C-alpha cells in the first residue's frame, strides 16, 4: 500500500518536477545558447508567460472536466472562433448604438451565450443519440467552423474598442487581466470538481458508467452540463484574447483542440475518464508555455517546438503507463 501511495505521489508531482526541470534547463542552457542578453527567469518574462498561457489554459480547464467525465471535445477551436466573432461584431450592431461602453457587457454576454449554446448542442446530441463524443464533436468541429465562415465569408471580423483594450492590457497586483481570468477559472473549476455533487458525479460517471447509473446518478444531464461549461470557457477564452487583439480571422482557433488536449494529457488526465486533476492541468498548461518560450529563448523556431512537444507527449504517455504497470505489480505483492 505504501509503495502504491508513492507511485501516486510520483505521478501527481511529475508535472511540477517537469516544470522545475524546464526552468533550470532553460536558465542554464540560455546562459550559453541564448541570443538575447536577458535571463530566462526574468520576472517580466514569467508574468508574460502566464498571460500567454491564458487562452489555452482556460479551455484546458473545461477539457479536463469533459475528459474526467469520459468524453472529449474537438470543437473548442471552432466555438472559440464563433464566440470571438460574436464578441467583436455585436459591438457594431445598430441595436446597441446608444449604449456607449455599456455595449461591452452586452457583447460579452452574447459571446458567452453562444459558447454555452454550442456546447449544449454537442452535449444534447451525445446524450440523446448515444453517438460517441469523439464523433459528435469531430462533426461539430467541421460544422461550427462552417458557421464561422458563413458569418463573414473569408474576411476577418474586426472591431477595436479602446475601453476594452485598456481593460485587457491592465495589470492588477502585477498580474495581467488574462492571468486573473485564468486563475479565477482554475479556482472555480477546482471548486466545482472537488467540492460539489456535480464534480463527484462527473468523476463517478467517467470511472464506471454502469455503476454510476446503478447508484442513481443521471448520466445525461451531467455530461450536458460539462459540455456547456467547456463551451462557456471556450467563449471566455475568446473574450480574454480578442478584447485585446480586436480582429478575428475565420481560421483562428484551428488546432487549439490539439494544444488543449496535449496540456490536459501532460497534466495526467486519463482519456478513459474517471481520473484527472484541475491543478495538474494548470501545471500542464504552464509546462507547455514554458517549453514554447524556453525553446524560443534558445533561438529555436516553431518547427523544433512542434517536434519537441509531440515527442514529449508520447514520452509522458509511455512513462505514465510504466508507472501504472508498476503500481499494479506492487498491489499484487
Amino acid at each position, binding site marked *: 500500500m505504501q509503495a502504491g501511495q508513492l507511485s501516486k505521489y510520483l505521478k501527481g508531482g511529475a508535472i511540477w518536477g517537469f516544470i522545475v526541470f524546464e526552468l533550470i534547463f532553460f536558465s542554464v542552457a540560455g546562459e550559453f545558447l541564448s541570443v538575447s542578453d536577458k535571463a530566462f527567469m526574468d520576472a517580466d518574462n514569467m508574468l508574460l508567460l502566464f498571460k500567454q498561457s491564458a487562452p489555452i489554459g482556460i479551455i484546458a480547464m473545461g477539457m479536463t472536466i469533459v475528459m474526467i467525465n469520459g468524453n472529449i471535445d474537438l470543437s473548442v477551436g471552432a466555438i472559440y472562433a464563433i464566440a470571438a466573432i460574436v464578441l467583436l461584431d455585436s459591438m457594431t450592431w445598430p441595436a446597441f448604438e446608444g449604449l456607449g461602453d455599456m455595449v461591452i457587457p452586452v457583447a460579452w454576454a452574447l459571446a458567452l451565450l453562444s459558447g454555452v449554446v454550442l456546447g449544449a448542442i454537442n452535449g444534447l446530441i451525445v446524450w440523446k443519440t*448515444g453517438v460517441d463524443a469523439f*464523433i459528435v464533436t469531430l462533426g461539430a468541429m467541421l*460544422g461550427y467552423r*462552417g458557421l464561422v465562415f*458563413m458569418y463573414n465569408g473569408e474576411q476577418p471580423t474586426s472591431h477595436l474598442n479602446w475601453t476594452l483594450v485598456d481593460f485587457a492590457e491592465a495589470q492588477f497586483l502585477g498580474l495581467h487581466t488574462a492571468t486573473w481570468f485564468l486563475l479565477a477559472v482554475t479556482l472555480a473549476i477546482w471548486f466545482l470538481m472537488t467540492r460539489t455533487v456535480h464534480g463527484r458525479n462527473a468523476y463517478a460517471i467517467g470511472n464506471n458508467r454502469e455503476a454510476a447509473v446503478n447508484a442513481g446518478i443521471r448520466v445525461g444531464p451531467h455530461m450536458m452540463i460539462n459540455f456547456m461549461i467547456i463551451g462557456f470557457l471556450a467563449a471566455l477564452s475568446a473574450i480574454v484574447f480578442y478584447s485585446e487583439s480586436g480582429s478575428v480571422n475565420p481560421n483562428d482557433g484551428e488546432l487549439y483542440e490539439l494544444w488543449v488536449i*496535449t496540456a490536459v494529457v501532460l497534466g495526467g488526465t486519463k482519456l478513459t475518464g474517471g481520473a484527472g486533476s484541475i491543478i495538474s492541468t494548470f501545471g500542464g498548461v504552464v509546462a507547455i508555455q514554458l517549453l514554447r518560450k524556453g525553446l524560443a529563448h534558445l533561438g529555436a523556431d516553431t*518547427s523544433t517546438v512542434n*517536434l519537441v512537444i509531440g515527442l514529449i*507527449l*508520447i514520452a509522458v504517455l509511455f512513462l505514465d503507463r510504466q508507472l501504472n504497470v508498476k503500481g499494479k505489480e506492487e498491489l499484487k505483492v
Partner: protein
Amino acid sequence: MAGLTKSQIGGFLARQGILVAFALFIIGFTIANPRFIDPDNIMGVVRSSAILGVMALGVTFVVISGNLDLSVGSMMSFSTIVVLDLHDKIGPTLAIPTMFAMTLALGAFIGFLVAFLKLNSLIVTLGMLSAIHGLTLTYSGGKNMDIADKEGTWFSVFGQGDIAGISVPILIFLLLALVLGVVLAKTPFGRKVYAVGGNGTAATFSGVRRARVVFMCYIISAFCVATAGLLQASRSLGSQNTVGQGLELEVLAAVILGGASLLGGSGTIFKTVIGVLILGFITNGLLLVGLQFYVQFVVTWVIIILAVWLDIAAKRGKLWSPIA
C-alpha cells in the same frame, strides 16, 4: 414491398442508410443542376477525391483494428515535401522509393509505439501530428518546395496523366482500393484485422499475434499516405509545408461516414470509398448549386452525425439512446 413491416423498412434504411442518402443526394443535386450528372463532372469529382480517398483506405485498416491515426495529414505533408525536394537532388526515379522508405519508417515508428508498447493511439498520433509537422518544417526550413523544371519532368504523370482517357490518380485510387479491399475481405490477414478490432482479447487467445497485426495496419496506412503524397506532389509540382493540414479529420469523417465503428471491428474498403465519394459529391454539388465551399462543412457535420446515429440506432433497435 407490401409484406414489409414498418420496422423492417426502418431497419433497411438504417443499415443501408448511407447508400440511400447518397442516392437521394445525387437525385437532388441533379434536379438542381443537370450538369452534376455530366460524366466530365463525375470524373472531376472522383479525381479530386483521389488523394483523400487513398489516405482513407489506409486509415480504414487502422480504424477496423480498433485504433486511430490522426497523423496522416502531417505525414502527407512530409511525403510531399520530401519527394519534391529529392526530385531535383537525386532525380525522380530515386526520389520516389526514398520518400516511400522515409514515410514507411515514420509509420513503423507509430506502429511500434501503438502495437508493441501498447500506448493509446489517439495520443500517440496526436503527438506525431505535431512532431512530424515539426520534422517537415525542419527539413524544408519552412520554405515552399518547388520543382525547378516543371515542364520537362515525367514526374507529373502520377497526378496529371491519362491512361485510356481515365486520369492516373483515379486509376491509382481504384487499383489500391481493389488490392486493399481483397486483402481485407479475402485474406487471413484481413480476418485477423477484424478479429483484433472486434475483440482483442479473444483474438489473442485464438493465437492471433495482435501486436503484429496492428503494426501492419500502420504500415499500410503509411504506404497509403506516401502514395497520396506522391499524387499531391505530382499534381502541383510544388507545395507548402502545410498541404495536408486538417486532412486527418476529413479522412476520418469519410471512414466514419462509410460506417466503420471507432471501436473497431467493423467497416469495409467499399464503404469507405462510398464515404469518400459522398464527401466529394457533396462539395461538388453544393458548389454547382452556387453555395460557398464552407457550406459543405455544415452539411458534412449533419450527415456524419445522422449516419452514425442511424447506424447505432439500428443496432440497439431504438432511436433514442438509453442514457438516463
